[in-house]
């Protein structure tokens, strides 16, 4: 097993699959609400910020010469500082994973299983996630790569919308109308979150520059996907309409009509399970990695099952879709802080150590 390494291609897919998920469904509306006309362009800037963040992570990788982040932190931080920090990050990542799951199943319940209990649906997603996570990162990455191919054909759906796409609907106005740049940037940025888990991949990748480049490419792939979808929404729907649609992408899916069948949106929505499970699995895996570091003797399976069970009960708390949205929002903010804070702290530690050695 030790010989196995993650190849750059797998890292790219891993990053992309962790970043994308159900957020895509509401992203065009959030952009319209917060950035006004032609709000999709904000994605370019926000993706740039994510790229900068990834660059900071790559500095950690370079300065640490491939050491795992745990090794770096344990070089100079005492345990009584480390363990609360570890627990905090592990908690946030695990809860993020489970709320993402809850969000997906809640939408699924709304469109298909109106009277089935949400948590019953969630148990099923959790079982899938459990079986995926216990296999370790190499197998997760392989599974995610096949998930990617299973869902990648969905880009072809976009051709359905060319006929009703109209440039005149895009308007020549940029970022005008009622706008909330700061709030909007923060909430849209959470849709890019996911790349920070590459911090944990250091020990598992092939040594070399290609690794961080792969993460950047993954982020670009996410950006491109988001831009295409949102761009189409802005030319396909009228602006005022877009602001009122809770899940513009769900409506896009229900617009599809094939010669022999109509209303395949439920079926297509099920494909989002793949990208959602990927996101959840990666966050639970990341949380597991940290717990494993804290209790090295514990078995992986036990850790994973305990994490999943613990967050299962947390996921019970938010009940309505708006509540879940609010939770996701705040978790997203915290994840953003971790995504920037953690690598910056690691760089500081590395620099201090370097100077001390000199």
């Amino acid at each position, binding site marked *: 097993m030790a010989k196995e390494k993650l190849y750059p291609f797998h890292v790219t897919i891993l990053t992309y699959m962790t970043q994308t998920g159900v957020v895509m469904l509401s992203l065009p509306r959030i952009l319209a609400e917060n950035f006004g006309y032609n709000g999709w362009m904000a994605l370019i800037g926000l993706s740039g910020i994510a790229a900068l963040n990834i660059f900071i992570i790559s500095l950690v990788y370079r300065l640490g010469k491939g050491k795992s982040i745990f090794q770096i932190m344990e070089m100079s931080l005492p345990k009584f500082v480390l363990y609360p920090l570890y627990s905090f990050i592990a908690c946030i990542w695990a809860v993020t994973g489970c709320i993402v799951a809850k969000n997906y199943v809640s939408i699924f319940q*709304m469109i298909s*299983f109106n009277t089935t209990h949400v948590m019953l649906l969630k148990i099923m997603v959790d079982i899938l996630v459990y079986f995926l996570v216990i296999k370790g990162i190499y197998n997760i990455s392989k599974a995610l790569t096949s998930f990617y191919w299973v869902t990648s054909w969905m880009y072809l759906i976009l051709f359905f919308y060319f006929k*009703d796409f109209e440039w*005149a609907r895009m*308007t020549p*106005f940029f970022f005008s109308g009622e706008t909330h740049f700061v709030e909007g940037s923060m909430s849209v940025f959470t849709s890019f979150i996911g790349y920070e888990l590459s911090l944990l991949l250091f020990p598992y990748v092939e040594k070399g520059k290609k690794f961080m480049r792969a993460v950047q490419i993954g982020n670009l792939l996410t950006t491109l996907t988001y831009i295409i979808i949102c761009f189409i929404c802005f030319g396909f729907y009228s*602006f*005022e*309409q877009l602001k009122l649609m809770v899940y513009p992408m769900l409506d896009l899916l229900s*617009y599809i009509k094939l010669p022999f069948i109509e209303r395949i949106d439920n079926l297509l929505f099920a494909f989002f399970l793949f990208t959602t499970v990927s996101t959840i699995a990666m966050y639970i895996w990341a949380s597991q990695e940290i717990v494993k570091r804290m209790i090295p003797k514990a078995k992986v399976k036990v850790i994973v099952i305990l994490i999943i069970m613990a967050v299962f009960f947390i996921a019970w708390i938010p009940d309505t879709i708006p509540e879940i949205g609010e939770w996701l929002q705040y978790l997203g903010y915290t994840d953003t802080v971790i995504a920037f804070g953690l690598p910056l702290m690691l760089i500081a530690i590395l620099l201090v150590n370097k100077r001390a050695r000199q």
Partner: protein
Amino acid sequence: MIPLRKKALLLQLFAALLVLSGCGDEKILERLGFIHTAGYELVPAENSGEPDKLRVTIAVPKADPEGKIKRETMTAVVATSKEARIELSRQTELSLVSGQLRSTLFGAALARKGIGEHIDTFVRDPAISQRVKITVVNGNVQHLLNKRYAEHPRPGQYIDRMLDKEAEAMMIPNVTLYDFTRDYYDDGIDAVAPIIREKGKDITIDGIALFQGDRYVARIDPDDSLIFAILRQNFKRGEMSINLNSLGYGKEKLLFSSMVSSRKIKVNRGENGGLSVQIRMLVKGSVLEYVGDLKIGEEEDRHKLEKRIAEYLTSNAQKMIDAMQRHKADSIGIGKHVRNSMSYTEWKSTNWDELYPNIEVRCSTEVVIKNFGKFM
């Protein structure tokens, strides 16, 4: 490692869970009533002082292969459309679902009053497709849906297929829930919908309804519907019969077919800041039927005919736009182009609904006869 047998057990358990969890939302095909068409119309409260009521009629095709009855229609008279569902479901042994709803019909009187609240319900319900058709009915909706049309399929399907076919030939715009809501919320265009009515033993297209906001304000005659199509969008397939009599060219008639049309809307600014709009239409097509004294095989005469057709199209388009301006219905989307010629602040400070009837709109047409058949 978990032993293989245990693993198999776990897998079975998982499979059972997966299957059983569906039981809560069990849906048996034979027990479902798929609403195919839903009709809404106003029942005026005659002098009783009560508010007007709503009559909702639905057509449900029957899936039972043994039953002789192929469809069922149900009607309920209610105060709001939300009550209708409960009231209708009391009348049937099937559970009514709207996932396969294909078309909705609105009585003309109701459409005049506004259909916004119905549209709101449709877009909110995740079961309802974005492709549900919106149509206005001139006449009694209940009667239209209840009647048996001996020579045609059942009414729901009949209407649905006819609308599809006619929209393909550009005789009516294809108006789905998606199209309607999109234009309804757009500040630079107003929504439209086709009109149908009962005619003897058939159903027929009765023109195009022009909306202002969610209210039906004006109608376009079926004979002019192709001119409307030329003004509203670019298209690649259409056919119209033209009677040049109205322009004073004697008894000249022709059928202009395989039409390909494109139109450009240009917004100009006068020196004093006033707006004027120029609509340029380019129509190409073939003439396969012509009655008149020109020889369409000869180039000179053909150009003359092109000029006359252009004149006909221009004058009719101009009349149509004047009428639309009078009714304050910007059905061809001039507002979109005006908006796109302005800055954001300028557009926001313009009251387009007030400005629209007063701006100058000029049409010009170029006609090209691509061919005239295989006979000189």
